């Protein structure tokens, strides 16, 4: 009883994402110019920043669908919310790994608390990790409702965490995007945009995969319940 349209869409987005990822890897490592100061390690930033933005978008999607769920109470929106938080966490872990690799190459240490973005992602990781604890502690409709409330509250606290960490610490991290625009030449910016689109495609594909699996699971449960009644 899986949604055939959703599976077809998944095949299309999956293929497009795989192609985009391949193009971005090719462009970042073979076409984009090398940074004069940092050398090859700078190339990790194309992925690092794109992954970080994608994880924020995943949490934003969870918060939006949290609001939609509270208004409509449709289980589908809860499924999108929980899948988005899971993917947001996955991308957050990737942010910490890529950031850590960059810290080791730049400063010779795997972890630097002075970097506001890495510190923010640790807080985000802890915050959204608690989302699943909350989810496993509640039952039935309450589980979806509480998850929606927490997704909204957690997303509201993310900018606060980021701003507070940034205010409290020195700016040792190179600021790639400033209010006046992107602080990089256009040849780098093109590949950054390609990497960003590829990461968003990856998020979209993984979200669809998760939703297909969750819908199938829900359909199976319904079928089991029907069989038990008969």
């Amino acid at each position, binding site marked *: 009883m899986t949604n055939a349209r959703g599976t077809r869409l998944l095949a299309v987005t999956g293929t497009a994402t795989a192609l985009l990822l391949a193009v971005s890897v090719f462009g970042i490592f073979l076409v984009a110019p090398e940074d004069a100061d940092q050398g090859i390690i700078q190339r990790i930033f194309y992925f690092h920043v794109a992954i970080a933005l994608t994880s924020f978008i995943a949490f934003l999607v969870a918060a939006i669908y949290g609001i939609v769920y*509270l208004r409509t109470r449709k289980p589908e929106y809860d499924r999108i919310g929980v899948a988005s938080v899971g993917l947001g966490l996955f991308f957050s872990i990737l942010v910490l790994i890529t950031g850590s690799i960059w810290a080791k190459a730049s400063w010779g240490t795997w972890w630097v608390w002075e970097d506001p973005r890495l510190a923010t992602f640790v*807080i985000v990781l*802890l*915050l959204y*990790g*608690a989302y699943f*604890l*909350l989810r496993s*502690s*509640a039952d039935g409709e*309450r589980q979806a*409702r*509480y998850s*929606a*409330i*927490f997704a*909204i*509250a*957690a997303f*509201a*606290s993310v900018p*606060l*965490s980021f*701003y*507070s*960490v940034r*205010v*409290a610490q020195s700016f040792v991290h190179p600021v790639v995007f400033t209010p006046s625009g992107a602080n990089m030449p256009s040849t780098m910016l093109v590949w950054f945009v390609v990497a960003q689109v590829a990461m968003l495609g990856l998020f979209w594909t993984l979200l669809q995969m998760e939703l297909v699996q969750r819908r199938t699971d829900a359909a199976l449960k319904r079928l089991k319940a029907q069989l038990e009644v008969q």
Partner: protein
Amino acid sequence: MATSQTPPRLEIAVAEPELAAVPRVGWRGPLAALVRKDVQLELRTKQTAIGMVLFALVAMVIFQFAIGSRTDDATPFAAGIIWATVALTAVLAVSRAWAAEREGRTIDGLLAAPVGRGVLLTAKAVSIFLYLLALEIVVVPLAVLFFVESAAATDLAIVFGLCLLANLALAIVGSLVASLAAFTRGRELLVPALFLPAIVPVLIAAAGGTFSVLGGTDDMAELRGYSLLLAGCAVVFGLVAYATYEFVFDD
């Protein structure tokens, strides 16, 4: 003898409730009554307040042996120690926020009362605020005594001003978390896991502001910045609580 007659139907006339006849209940009266109830219960038992103060003292002693004993002057760490202690102890206040209702099995009665859900959440926020204030009245002077080499009375007054601002944000988040955890399993695990990561921005701002006063730098611009951040946290968390409170008790 078996009978094929169907039993007579019991007709019960249910009067439609006359909504117009129900007196309108404002929010001030129920809010004051709910807060008074929590304060009176605490004054009678003193269980939570004493537990919190003892826990805070133990936490400060632990911080002393973990950090303070490694340095000649713990002044730079005092702000951090104060707010780490307050944060950890606040978990107790949040965990115990609905304890009296749960243990006395009055939670359903309270939810059935003609009191707005927002009033229930606000009452719990006020109670948590008062618990934190009582805690800080003990902890802040003691921490200054233990860890700060020299501090003026005006410094203490400014730190208490910061405490009031921080308590506002902590109480709002605490009330929301306590209300979510009240109806879940394993709430003793859930409260710290939900509450502590959510209040990190408040702690960063409160510790930063306190350090700018007690750390010896007397940086007023920094203090102003951190105070604004604390106020911002209170506003953001207040808006989130306002937007979601009716869904917390939506059973």
